[in-house]
């Protein structure tokens, strides 16, 4: 009995030792040299592997960062400037800074605003609806509401609002990785400059139809009337294909355009409620300063 135990212990230990030696030799012989800085850089990255930087994952970006001379075109939107600065310190290079951004849905075609003209019955994804036909509403530019963007968001920052049938961006969670921008078959998401207090002014419409048609299909469509364009003091508004677009980098949040819009297609959020007209000037001043 004792002998069995002793032999078992000896033979197993020997087996283990032999295996260890083989493994060690193999590990030495086939070792691949990797820059140790890659691990350091990767540790700084958010490890979300969202692909927002354009690379397959955080490791992939780390490798590219270590190899690159300067950080041109390389930026982790999730980690933002802080992360890039820390990585810059590790690698001894100057990191670019970028404005913080946030995803914004440029459609307000809720069930109420944009009446349904047909019922879709098929696999519930926006991609399939888009490939099949113009969608459940008369607007052929608007949101389908099947939530491909919600499914693709790695940060749980998008949710469907059951009342409007539109996705809602959670400003606390959105990292501007751009996954929704790439996924939306209608190209309705835009990464816009993020202001303090999540103040936003944007044209919530992508409809390029002529005014009458656009309005017929959606009560809050941009009808391309040029009113906002004329009133903007900062040349931040561009008119293209019957559609106004507010450049978030030129816009100074003066709020002059929003009240002009006859269809309320310009949405402003995060501002204190508007005071009576006479006081408007002061409100603007306080915001700008």
């Amino acid at each position, binding site marked *: 009995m004792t002998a069995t135990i002793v032999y078992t212990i000896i033979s197993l230990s020997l087996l283990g030792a032999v295996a260890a030696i083989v493994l060690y030799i193999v590990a030495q012989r086939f070792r691949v040299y990797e820059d140790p800085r890659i691990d350091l850089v990767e540790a700084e990255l958010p490890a979300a592997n969202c692909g927002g930087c354009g690379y397959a994952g955080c490791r992939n970006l780390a490798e590219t960062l270590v190899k690159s001379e300067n950080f041109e075109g390389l930026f982790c939107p999730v980690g933002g400037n802080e992360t890039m600065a820390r990585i810059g310190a590790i690698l001894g290079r100057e990191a670019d800074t970028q404005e913080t951004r946030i995803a914004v849905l440029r459609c307000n075609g809720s069930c109420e605003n944009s009446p*349904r*003209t*047909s*019922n*879709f*019955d*098929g696999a519930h994804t926006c991609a399939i609806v888009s490939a*099949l036909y113009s969608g*459940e509403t008369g607007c052929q530019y608007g949101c389908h509401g099947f939530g491909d963007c919600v499914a693709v968001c790695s940060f749980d920052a998008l949710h469907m609002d059951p009342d409007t049938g539109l996705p809602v961006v959670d400003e606390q969670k959105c990292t501007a990785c751009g996954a929704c921008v790439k996924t939306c078959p209608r190209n309705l998401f835009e990464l816009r400059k993020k202001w303090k207090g999540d103040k936003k002014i944007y044209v919530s419409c992508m409809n390029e139809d002529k005014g009458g048609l656009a309005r017929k299909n959606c009560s809050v469509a941009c009808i391309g009337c040029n009113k906002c364009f004329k009133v903007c003091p900062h040349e931040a508004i561009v008119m293209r294909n019957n559609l106004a677009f507010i450049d978030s980098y030129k816009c100074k949040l003066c709020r002059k355009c929003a009240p002009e819009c006859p269809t309320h297609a310009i949405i402003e959020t995060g501002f204190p409620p508007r005071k009576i007209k006479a006081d408007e000037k002061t409100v603007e001043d306080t915001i700008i300063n």
Partner: protein
Amino acid sequence: MSKLLTVSPSPHIGSDQSVQELMYGVILSLVPALLVTLYVFGIGALIVVALSVFSCILFEWGIQKYLMKSEIRIRDGSAAVTGLLLAFNLPSNLPWWMVVLGALFAIGIGKMTYGGLGNNPFNPALVGRVFLLISFPVQMTSWPLPVVSRMHYLDATTGATPLGLLKEAVRNGEAVPEVMKQIPDHMQLFLGQMGGSLGEISALALIIGFIWLLYKRIITWHIPVFMVGTIFVFTGILWWLNPVRNATPVFHILTGGVLLGAIYMATDLVTSPMTRAGMILYAAGIGLITVIIRVYGAYPEGVSFAILIMNAFVPLINKYIKPRRFGEEVKHG
């Protein structure tokens, strides 16, 4: 128009065969075998079948509702099929709690851990049976005598199965033709006059079910025919080489759940290969392993293990045996 039109991608029509119909078709095809087993094993069979079906459905419902928190899909009938097939793989005097345990294992471990219907690599009923066989070998291999003990449940008089007698005899060095004299003849085996699991006894009833399944196009003939064929050929060769040590191929096919396995267990849609060629390979593999276990292994009966082993190969078979594509032979470009 007041109503909105529906828009969906083509095709706009579908066949009328649904998953429910497939499952209920399988259950219907098991009715002849069920009647035979009720006649032969009586009250014990009734208790085991009812208990097994009921607990399988209950466990599936419970797991879907409280653990997976998903949609309840017990109406598709797959749990009932699993329960029925599990019962058909058990002896009729199995204590009730073992049946329930087997059902829990079949549904819980065999099916739901993988994500429910369609995702399980192994046949759930067989997972339950093999679990019971390994955990409670004594109870799982004491078979009530046919017909005589049909008014008894746990107190039934037990005896050996034909295959058990054969294995014992071969181990003791007795000649097979001698043993055969104690075993019911082929006609009796064909009709179901033998000890064994609930569902495996009557070849006739199972074949009626098989014809029904083929008629309703629920399964194809490939797996059953090739599995039985392989067993027949392989045991036939052994018997021809040494008739004293080996039983006849017909005996092998009629006993020990070969037909039950071939028609109902191996053909389980979820766990069998997708292509015809794959099915044939899979069926032949099952046949081969069954005979190896029976003739050379420790167990008298090997269909369950053979099917589970080949189940494990199904993903590999699906990966490497592809259907022939239209226009693939011709080189282009």
